[in-house]
């Protein structure tokens, strides 16, 4: 797992990952690139990350991939990421395509739902929490009043 201040250098990272696994005998390499779209007048998105829990979340996926003979990798940006640049990339390597195609789907969806990362719109230089696009993590709400017995 790799974290960077600002936009990701997608070509460098994907090229390096390809080199790292060049003799690992994987038959499939499926990359995913998340790019900031221009919408609603934003100039950038901005991200906060809580690294200790992100690392354990990622480590659990490394184990899950390994049990299928596959490998997952990811990189994410911290701070401001201008539109038309990348904030998140990930990839799955596996011996055959089917495992990698299924894993990239599950990995990216679980990333969206459970990786401890918070997104903000940057408009006129101000950060606004993207609350309407955010998802409560698994197990949320236990401290709320509805959690009372």
């Amino acid at each position, binding site marked *: 797992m790799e974290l960077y201040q600002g936009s990701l250098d997608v070509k460098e990272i994907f090229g390096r990952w390809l080199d790292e696994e060049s003799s690992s005998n994987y038959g499939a390499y499926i990359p995913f690139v998340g790019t900031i779209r221009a919408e609603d007048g934003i100039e950038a998105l901005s991200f906060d990350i809580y690294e200790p829990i992100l690392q354990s979340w990622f480590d659990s996926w490394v184990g899950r991939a390994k049990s299928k003979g596959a490998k997952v990798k990811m990189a994410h940006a911290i701070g401001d990421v201008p539109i038309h640049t990348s904030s998140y990339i990930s990839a799955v390597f596996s011996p055959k395509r089917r495992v990698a195609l299924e894993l990239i789907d599950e990995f990216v969806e679980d990333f969206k739902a459970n990786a401890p990362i918070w997104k903000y719109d940057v408009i006129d230089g101000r950060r606004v929490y993207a609350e309407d696009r955010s*998802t409560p993590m698994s197990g*949320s*709400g236990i401290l709320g009043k509805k959690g009372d017995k």
Partner: protein
Amino acid sequence: MVKIEFLGPISQEPLKIEASSLEDVAKTLQDIEEISNWLDKCAVAVNDEMTNDLSTKLKDGDRVSILPPVCGG
């Protein structure tokens, strides 16, 4: 004392409180107006381990993290 940290967009400085379980933490936080509205949608970690068990016991020096809704990527 237990330290409570608020992550991401919750603009609240860390708190130190007396608590022997997450139930005690819930009671304390429900009484703080700026925080109570967040609680229904926040996840909880104790010493960086996620938990969804309100009866989790706490000891002196434990760190409780409050994680609001996420959106990576």
